C-alpha cells in the first residue's frame, strides 16, 4: 500500500510537474565504507559472500584490491569455525553444511588489519515454494508465486532472474563464406536466427506472510510482462528465489528498497540511513553496509511458451526499426565486395526461372538478421524446450 502512495504521487507530479537533472556539489567524503552482501546457504549448497567498497557517485567503481586475500569464516556459538574460500573479485565461496540449530557470527579480517564481525546469525529455513505460475490478463502476463510462512519464517524476499529466447527481425540460414567466395548454409553452431538472453533483475519484492490468513501468501505477484514484450515472443523462463528473512533482515531490505525506488517524489519518506548487521571492530561507530543472512534459498523455475499466451502481438523492437530486405540483388560477381565486410547479410536467394542455383541474393543489415548481436545462440544450461 505504501507503494501505492508513491505511484500515486508520481502520477500526480506528471500533471504539472517538471523533472530536470540535478547535480549538486558533493563534498568528497570517506569512500572506504565496506559493503558485505550474502545469503549463505546452511545446508552446503554453494553460496557467495561479496565484499566491496562504496565509491563516488559519479566516479568509477572503487578499486577493490584492498579486499583481496581477506580471511573470512563463520564462527558458531560453540566455537567451530567454517572458513570461506576466495574466488576472486571480492567474492568468497561458502559450501559447508552447518548445523541449523546453532547460531553464528561472520568474521572478516582484511589484509590491512581491519576486522569486521556480524551480529549473531540464526539460520532460517525458507519454506518451499508451493506454486509458481502465470496468468494472462488485459495488460499482459502476470507471474505469481504462492507460499506459506511458518513460525520461523514470516518475512520473505523474492528476487528473480529472467531468460528468454528471441528471433531476429529477418531470419536467414545463409552466410557468405570468404574461403569459397560463395553463400553457404550456416552450420547448427553458427545459427543466428534464434538466441537467448539471460537477465538478472534487481527488483526486491518483500512481503510479510502474517498479513494473510494462515500465513498463506497466495498468488503474490512477482513480475508483469507487458503485452507484446519480446520476452514472450518465443519462450520465456524465470527463476524465482525465495528467501525467508528475520525481522532485522527484512528491515534492511525494506530500507534498501525504499532508498532505491522511492526517492524524492512528493510524499516519499525521508531517506533512511542504511546499516546492517556488520560492525567494524576497530571503530564500532563507523558505518558498514550489509545484512548477511544464513538460511536456505528456495528456487522455482518456470517456462512460458509463446503458444500459451497467444495472441501476443509482438511490439516493435527498437533495434529492429527500419529492418527490411533490400530490393537490390547482390549478384555472384559482387559477393566479395559487398558481403565480405559482413555489414549486410544474404537473406533471400534469387533463382532464375528454370534454374537451380541462385544468381544472387537479396540482403538485409546484419543487426536485423544476426540475433547474436543481442544475445547468445547457445541456450543457457537450464534451458528446456
Amino acid at each position, binding site marked *: *500500500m*505504501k507503494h*501505492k*502512495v508513491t*505511484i*500515486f504521487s508520481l*502520477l*500526480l*507530479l*506528471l*500533471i*504539472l*510537474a*517538471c*523533472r*530536470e*537533472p*540535478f547535480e*549538486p556539489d*558533493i563534498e568528497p*567524503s570517506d*569512500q572506504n*565504507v565496506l*559493503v558485505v*552482501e550474502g545469503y549463505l546457504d546452511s545446508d552446503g549448497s554453494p553460496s557467495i559472500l561479496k565484499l566491496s*567498497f*562504496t*565509491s*563516488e*557517485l559519479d566516479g568509477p*567503481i572503487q578499486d577493490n584490491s584492498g579486499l583481496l586475500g581477506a580471511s573470512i569464516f563463520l564462527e558458531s556459538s560453540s566455537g567451530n569455525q567454517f572458513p570461506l574460500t576466495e574466488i576472486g573479485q571480492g567474492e568468497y565461496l561458502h559450501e559447508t553444511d552447518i548445523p541449523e540449530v546453532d547460531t553464528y557470527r561472520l568474521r572478516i579480517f582484511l589484509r590491512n588489519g581491519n576486522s569486521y564481525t556480524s551480529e549473531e546469525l540464526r539460520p532460517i529455513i525458507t519454506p518451499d515454494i508451493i506454486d509458481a505460475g502465470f496468468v494472462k490478463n488485459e495488460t499482459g502476463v502476470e507471474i505469481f508465486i504462492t507460499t506459506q510462512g511458518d513460525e520461523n519464517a514470516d518475512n520473505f524476499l523474492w*528476487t528473480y532472474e529472467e531468460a528468454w529466447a528471441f528471433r531476429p527481425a529477418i531470419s536467414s540460414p545463409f552466410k557468405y563464406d570468404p574461403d569459397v567466395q560463395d553463400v553457404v548454409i550456416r552450420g547448427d553452431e553458427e545459427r543466428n536466427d534464434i538466441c537467448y538472453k539471460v537477465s*538478472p*533483475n*534487481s527488483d*526486491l519484492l518483500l512481503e510479510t506472510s502474517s*498479513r*494473510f*490468513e494462515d500465513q*498463506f501468501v*497466495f*498468488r503474490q505477484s512477482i513480475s508483469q510482462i507487458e503485452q507484446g514484450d519480446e520476452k514472450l515472443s518465443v519462450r520465456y523462463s524465470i527463476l524465482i528465489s525465495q528467501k525467508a528473512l528475520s*525481522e532485522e533482515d527484512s528491515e534492511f531490505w*525494506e*530500507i*534498501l528498497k525504499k532508498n*532505491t525506488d522511492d*526517492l*524524492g*517524489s*512528493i*510524499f*516519499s*519518506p*525521508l*531517506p*533512511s*540511513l*542504511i*546499516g546492517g548487521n556488520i560492525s567494524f571492530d576497530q571503530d564500532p561507530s563507523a558505518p558498514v553496509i550489509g545484512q548477511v543472512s544464513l538460511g536456505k534459498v528456495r528456487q522455482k523455475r518456470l517456462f512460458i511458451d509463446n503458444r500459451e499466451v497467444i495472441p501476443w502481438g509482438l511490439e516493435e523492437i527498437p533495434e529492429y526499426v527500419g529492418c527490411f530486405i533490400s530490393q537490390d540483388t547482390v549478384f555472384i560477381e559482387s559477393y566479395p565486395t559487398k558481403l565480405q565486410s559482413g555489414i549486410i547479410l544474404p537473406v533471400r536467394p534469387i533463382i532464375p526461372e528454370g534454374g537451380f542455383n541462385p544468381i544472387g541474393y537479396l540482403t538485409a543489415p546484419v543487426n536485423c538478421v544476426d540475433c547474436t548481436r543481442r544475445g547468445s545462440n547457445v541456450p543457457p544450461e537450464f534451458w528446456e524446450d
Partner: protein
Amino acid sequence: MRKLFLLLFLNFFGFAAFAQSGGERISGLFAQMNFERFANTVENQTSYEFHFRQKDVADVRVNLQLSDASLPNALDEIFSGTNLKYTIDGELGVWISSESRMQMNFSPQFFEIKERSDDETSIVDSVDRFARNKLYTIGRSTDDPEKSSATISGIVTSIENGEPMEGAIVLERVNYNQMVTGPDGYYELTLPKGRHTLVVQNIGGFQEQRQINLLGDGKLNMRIAETVLSLDEVVVSSGALSNIQKLDMGVQAISIDEVKRLPAVLGEVDLVRGILTTPGVNTVGEASVGFNVRGGAADQNLILYNQSTVFNPSHVFGFFSAFNADLTSGVELYKGSIPVNYGGRLSSVLQIDADFGNEEKFSGSGGIGLLTGRLSLEGPISENTTFKIGGRATYSDWVLNLLEDETDLNGSDVSFYDLNANIRHEIDEKNILEFTGYLSQDDFSFDPDTTFNYRNFNVAGTWRHFFNDQLEGSFTFGYDSYEFGIIGIENPLNSFDFSFEVEQFHLRSDFEYRKNENHIFKFGFHAIQYDLDPGTIQPFGPESILIEQDLERERAREFSIYFGDEFTINEELSISYGGRYMFYNMYGQQTINEYVPGAPITDSNVIGERSFGSGESVKTYHGPEFRVSARYILDNQSSLKAGFNTNRQNLHLLTNTSAIAPTDSWKLSDTYIKPQTGGQASLGYYRNLARGQVEFSAEVYYRYMRNLLDFRSGATLILNENIEQDVLNSDGRAYGIEFLLKKNVGDLRGSLAYTFSRSFLKTSDDPSIEKVNNGEFYPSNYDQPHNVVLALNYELSKRINTTLNTNYSTGRPVTLPISKFEYAGSERVFFSERNAYRIPDYFRIDFSVNLEGNHKVNKVAHASWSFGVYNLLGRSNPYSVYYTPIEGEIKGFQLSIFARPIPFITYNFRF
C-alpha cells in the same frame, strides 16, 4: 438621487484629498493654553494661517494632547461647547467666527469644509442626519452616582446589510479614547460622565458621529453607512498607531480582501498562501498541506475555523486551501505571544473567522474558476436570525483530461467540494447564538486501481452572553473530525480498504471581564474528548483474502483552565500575564507494551504487556503553560514589546515525509509518546513611519521544543501497533529575526517581509536505538534561513487593481546520496548525514489583475474578474530532489511542481 450621489462623490474626493494633504498634522501637549498661543504654535508647525477676532476666542482654553492629529479634529474639540465655528479655505486659511460659519462661496475647496455640527450638508439620509445631531442620553444618573466614569457599549452595524461591522473605530473626541469593533461589531468605551461626541469611522466608509450624554453604564447601537465606492481609507490618525499600541506581538492579521487580491494557483483564493506572505511563515513546497511557523513543524499549528479545529486545511494534497474565502471574514495568525485563551499546539494559532449572514436582505455571491465553481447565499431567516451558506466544488476534470494525452493518466479523477453553513440568532441584545458547520471532501484516483479520499467535518454552536457591561461569556460545544481512506483494487485477492479517523468533542467556556479601564481579565475552561482510530485495513471485495487488521482505538480527554489579565499600568506600559493548566489523560481500552526500564524502546526490550479496561486511566500528563507579554510605548511613533510563552501539545502528526501528506495519521500522547512542550521568548520593536502610512516592525525570537517526534530509519507509520519503537524522541530549537515593512494607504500598497531564521532538531539524550547524526543538532526539514516576500498592490483606478507577489527563500535541507555501492544486482546509494545539503533556492513571481464591474447601485449583480499568472517567470523551483537508477546508473533529478507559468482566470459575482 443622482445629484446626491454626485455630491457624495465629490465630498469623498474632497475628504480624501484632505486626508492626504496630511502634511498639516499637529502633535504636542497643549495644557491650559489660550487660543492665541495655540494658533501660533500650529502656525509654526504647519502652513495653516489663523484669522480670528481676539474677543471671540478670549475665553477659549486649549487642553489637548495631540499626536499627529488633524487640525479640524483639534478645532472640533477646542470649540466644543462654544458657539465658535471655523472654516478652512483652499489656501489653508483658518477662519474663525462666532455663531455662523463664514461662507467661502463655491470655490473648488468648498467641499473640504469640515464642520462639527453638520446641519447644512447632507451626506447621509435624513434618518441619520437626525441621528447625528440628536443627543442620546445613556444610562441613568441614579446608577452609581459616586462614580465619575461610565461605560458605553453597543454594536455597530451596517445600514446597507445590517451586518455587524468589524474594524470600525469608535472614538471619543476629548481624550481620544477609542476602540476597534470586533467581528461581532461590539465596542465598549469607558468615559467620564457627561457630554461627549462619539465618532465612528468605518474603514473605507463614512464617518459618523453621535452626541451622547453619559449618565451611567448603558448601550448605544449604531448603524452606519458603508460605501458603494471602494474608497481609500480615511486615516484617523490615532487609529494608525494601533500596531504600536496593541499589546499582542507576533500577530499577523490579513483581511480576506488582501488574500483575494493575491495571485493564486488556478485562481483558487487561498488563505494559507496569504499567510505565507507574512514574515516567519514558510512552507516546504507548493504541494504541501502545511506551513511552518518560526521553525516549528506543520502539525504544531492550531487551525481554527471559528471554534472548530480543522485537521487538514487543504484540497488535492495541498494544492488548494480548503476554506472558501466567501465564507470567512478574516484570518489571524498568532505566532509570537499566543493569547491565553488558545492552547494545544506548540507553534501558532491560525484563527479563521467565519462570516455570518446579512440581517437586512437576501444576497449571494459566487464565482467560476478553471477548476471550481462556488456559490454562497445569505440573508435573514427571521427578524433575529440570519444564515449564510456556501459551497465550492470541482465541476470538471478537464484540466486533467487536457493533460491526459501527454501523460498516462487514464482513469484519473480528481474531485472535491466543501460546504459551509453559518447561522446566527440574536435572542435579545444580551444573548447571541451562533452555529457554524463545515464539511470538506476530497476524492482522487490517478490510476483506476487506487482511490484516495479524505474528509473534514466540523460543527460547533456558540452561545454568547453579555452578563453585564463588564462581563461577557461564550460557551461552545462542537465536534470535529478528520478521516481518510485508501481503497486499492489492483489485485482482487489483495484488495484493501484502509481507513483512519480522528474525532474530538470539545466544550469551551470563555469569559472576558473588564474590571475598569486598566484590566481586562480573560478566563475559561476547555475540555476536549479525543477518539482516534489509528488505522483499519479490511479486505475489499469478495475475492480478497487479506486479513482485517484494526489497531486499537485511542481515547483521551484534555482539560485546560486559563486565566489572563491585560493590565494597563499607565499610558506607556501595559502587560499581559496569565497561564493555562492542562490536564491530559489517556484511558482504556488499551493494551500497551512494557519495556525494560531505562533501555531503548525496541522489540527486543519488550518484557510484557499491560491491558487497561474500558475507561481505565492509561497515562496522565499535566502541566502549566505561561503567557507573559509587555508593551512599552517609547514615543508617539514607536514601541517595544517582549513576551514569553510556553505551550503543550498532545496530538502529534506521524509523518516522515518532508511535506504533510493526507495519508499522514495523527497520534495521541500515550505512555511512551510524551506531550510536546516548548517555549518561546520574543522581543519586538514597532515604529510608524511617514506619518503612520508605513508600519515597520522587527521581532526576534528564540524557541525550544521537547518531545518532538522523529522516526528511525525504516520506520513504518501505517498500521504499526508498536509505533513507539519507531519513534525517536527529539529536541528542537529555533531562532530568528523578522522584519516587516508595510504600507497600508495610497494607491500603491504592499509589504516587504524579510526573515532570517534557523530551526534544528536533535535526537534526545534518552536511550534510543538510533541517534540521528550521532545525537548532534541537525537542520530540520523546514530550516530555510532567508526568506523574502514582497507583495505590491497598485490601484490603477477604482476598478482596476493589480498585484505583484515576489517570493524568495533558501532551499530546504535534504539528505543526499554521497556515494554508491553494488547490492543485490543493482547500484544503490549511500546517504549523507541527515539534512546535510539543500535543494536550490526558491524564487517565484506572480501577477494578478482584479477588474471590478461598474458601480451602478441598481445593478442586479456586481461582477468582477480576476486573472493573472502564477510563476510568471516560469522558473522551475525544485520541490525535491531524488536519485534513481537509470539503466543501472544512478542519476539525480530535481522535481518542480509548477515549473511553467500557470495562467488563471476567475469570474466572480454578487447579487
